[in-house]
């Protein structure tokens, strides 16, 4: 039991780290392709959606790939 949970936590952690790596590229290029309304948006906006980018990154990657 303990081991399964430990593994699950490491998997989640890995997923979130991938999300952080993804966010670097996403903020440089992807975000404006995925949603043109973000062009010219404020830093506060980019900060406030950051946790979401790290968690929901596969959605954004999929949308980015489709553009």
């Amino acid at each position: 039991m303990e081991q399964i949970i430990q593994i699950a936590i490491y998997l989640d952690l890995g997923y979130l780290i991938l999300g952080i790596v993804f966010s670097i590229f996403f903020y440089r290029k992807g975000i404006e392709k995925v949603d043109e309304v973000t062009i010219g948006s404020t830093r506060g906006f980019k900060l406030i959606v950051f946790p979401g980018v790290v968690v929901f990154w596969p959605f954004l990657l999929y949308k980015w790939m489709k553009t």
Partner: protein
Amino acid sequence: MSLNYTAVGWNKQKKQYVKILWLGILAFLIVFAALQFLLHPNISVETLIIRWSAITAFILLHIILVIGPLCRLNDRYLPLLYNRRHLGVSMFLIAAIHGVFGTIQFHALGDVNPIVSIFTSNQNYLEISNFPFQILGFCALIIFFLMAISSHDFWLKNLSPKFWKAMHMLVYVAYGLIILHVATGALQYETHLIYWIILIAGFLLVASLHIVSGIKERGNLRKTYQLQEEGFYEVCSLSDLEENCGKSVFINAENIAIFKYNGKVSAVNNICKHQMGPIGEGKIIDDCITCPWHGYQYMPENGQSPPPFKEELSTYNVRLLKDKIWVNPSPLPEGTLVKAAKIDI
């Protein structure tokens, strides 16, 4: 509806809303702390924080859950709905304080990873009085976290409204988990009857308001309108509508908003493109239908948002026969121009 995104689209009402909310939260902290020190002079600060944040988040969660049905029952409560998301994010932050302190207090002292410890330190799944209730709180907190981080409009659009809505409906799952978290946790040693009464009364309030508002909505859906030739249905009299105000009608499962303004009557789809707000409960402001929830605007004759915005609603043909309003419930493509029905004086 915005040209570009900002962190929070602040305006006067929102600032006031958040100010009142946090003043209330702080006032409750002071009263609660004073009472706890009076009743339990030996209480530790950690325990105080765990209890204060638990009860504050619990109360906020109830407020959040009753706002929806209250607004469906009476327009008076709409100002509460306006920016319910600030309530939600505040509730998550306070619940997170509770979760973090609870985890530190009970799970961070051993050599096991605290999160692993939440799941493994107690495995009495079959015993109610010793149930691992913290797992339930943990799962609820994850749901609140997902809702809080996706509360910006950017997520509504980019996760797709359907997925977003489904994810935010999980709040009901989280509510169930919290009820069980309290019932199998704190209420197993705080056995005074009053705690059970509060817990059950809160649940009954939330449940009954949902049922009553659901019945009311079903009643509206069921209402049958008399058919006229050519697909038009008589929906109401002109005098049932106030100037510059709307009315929601359901015909053949179509959800339609009709508006009376400037000697004319128009009909558009009743579901706002922003977050599915009830357009028909809005008003005409600056010649535009204005959604009561967050103020998205649409022109009444073509359902289009005024440029440069791009949202479009379906429109419907409307006729006036004497003082009766007739609507054809077949929706026209979104943004189609339909000449408003003119009121003869």
